């Protein structure tokens, strides 16, 4: 299955992936309207160190601890993509307790979680983070490792 992979040596730490993610999931059609003067809540997050930076988003694990631990059944695997039903989620954060990547986070209102769903559930249709990355520091491809 195609997934988002990180080439950390190419990451500039420009945070464009975060903005593109927040825009793609905003439901707005105008980027300025969606993001300007707002606190953004991206599902991909840049980690920055002294000389290295990289983006972290859901790995869509084959053995997803978040799905297996979810107390409500709000998290499920649909065609290999880990999906959250935000109507079912009560924001208990058990998924945040177990995700080894720190890739699940509370949504903007804090009452349900959000996570990368590879832009399959928004108008972008393919990962907006990857599409907008200026340096191919994240790629969306089949690696056949699993």
């Amino acid at each position, binding site marked *: 299955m195609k997934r988002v992979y990180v080439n*950390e040596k190419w990451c500039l730490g420009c945070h464009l992936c975060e903005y593109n993610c927040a825009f793609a999931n905003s439901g707005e059609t105008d980027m300025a309207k969606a993001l300007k003067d707002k606190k953004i809540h991206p599902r991909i997050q840049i980690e920055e160190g002294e000389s290295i930076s990289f983006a*972290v988003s859901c790995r869509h694990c084959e053995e997803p601890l978040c799905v*297996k631990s979810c*107390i409500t059944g709000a998290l499920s695997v649909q065609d290999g993509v880990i999906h959250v039903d935000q109507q079912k989620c*009560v924001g208990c954060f*058990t998924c945040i*307790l177990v995700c080894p*990547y720190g890739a699940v986070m509370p949504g903007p209102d804090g*009452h349900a979680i959000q996570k990368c769903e590879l832009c399959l559930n928004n108008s972008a249709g393919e990962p907006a983070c990857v599409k907008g990355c200026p340096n191919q520091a994240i790629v969306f491809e089949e690696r056949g*490792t699993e």
Partner: protein
Amino acid sequence: MNYVIIGNSAAAVGCVEGIRSVDRDGGITVISSEPHHVYSRPLISYLIYGKTDEQRMKYRPDDFYAKNNVTPLLGRTVTKVDYAGKRVLLEDGAAVSFDKLLFATGSSPFVPPMQGLDEVEQKFSFMKLDDAKRLSAAIGPETRVLIVGAGLIGLKCAEGIRSKVKSIAVVDLAPRILPSILDETGSALMQKHIEENGVTFLLGNSVARFHPNSAELKNGGTVDFDVLVLAVGVRPNTKLAAEIGCKVGKGIVSDDRCAASLPDVYAAGDCSESLDITDNEYRVLALWPNAYLQGETAGINMAGGEKRYDKAIPMNAIGFFGLPIITAGSYRGETYVVQDGETYKMLVTRENRLKGFILIGDIARAGIYTSLIREQTPLDTVDFELLKDKPQLMAFAAPQRAVKLGGVQA
């Protein structure tokens, strides 16, 4: 192959999904005293509060049993297991044959003998959907509630009903709240937060005698109440397993394949023990994720697959009145503590491993810590100074990150 599962909650669903990942055809029967489609018991406080409803609190979709070719016998109670005859006997006289049997019988509220308790008419446990519905029907804006037990169940109940009742008092013999998951500092912080939301605590105290609408306390004083909730503790349901000769300690004894001590019999969830790797002790880890993972392991092994459940640790994600808590592991060892108002962090290390942590307030990316505990990662292979600051993958060496994020094979 006929599989019989006694129980219909997280461990049972884990078992069904585990079996079906290996065996598409064998017959599966799920038997439960509760008449409901599988639902999430921890959500009953959210149900009373109004944050979920009966449809949304179903743990799996309506077609779960049909899709997995499961025969659900719901509202039916198992009274006995005939191990020699390989069948379970139901209260209504029916019998169901099995080749492989799973005990996923859960736990029941433990109510210690308390003087005068029989005189109290409006008393409730807080474990099941029906408990929540009964409690919900019994309370109103003028109701004064007394909760016995300042643990996870009692306090989740308090949160769920707070906006629906006049007052809530919580009494507990222990001197602090949530002692099973928090240290003293964490308990004090949460107690203050919950008090600020209108709950009164009577700690280090107990009920000497109940009257129909009041409780005399051991340390003097009386609490008047209209409704009593008993949340003292739970006990694993081990009777059926013990009767056929399964080894039972605190819970049903099972190995890392979730097999009980008798051939073809398995145990998972709150009725069973598992090995807590942070302390190397067998414990009943009565937690939803552990129940699912044990059930899944049992199911795969029952169906002839190979799966080990060998990374069990205590872990909890819970919150009260908007203040989230995430904890994992055990707290014996060296501690690193940071506190700032309602934000609290404690990391516990021992023998070059992270053994436990408490996060209150800021719970972001806590799973990175949990993973270090589960995987027993030697701390000298990561940058622990970075981890003290916050959970982050930057703390791992580049080759490990390439495995985690870059699709490189381990």
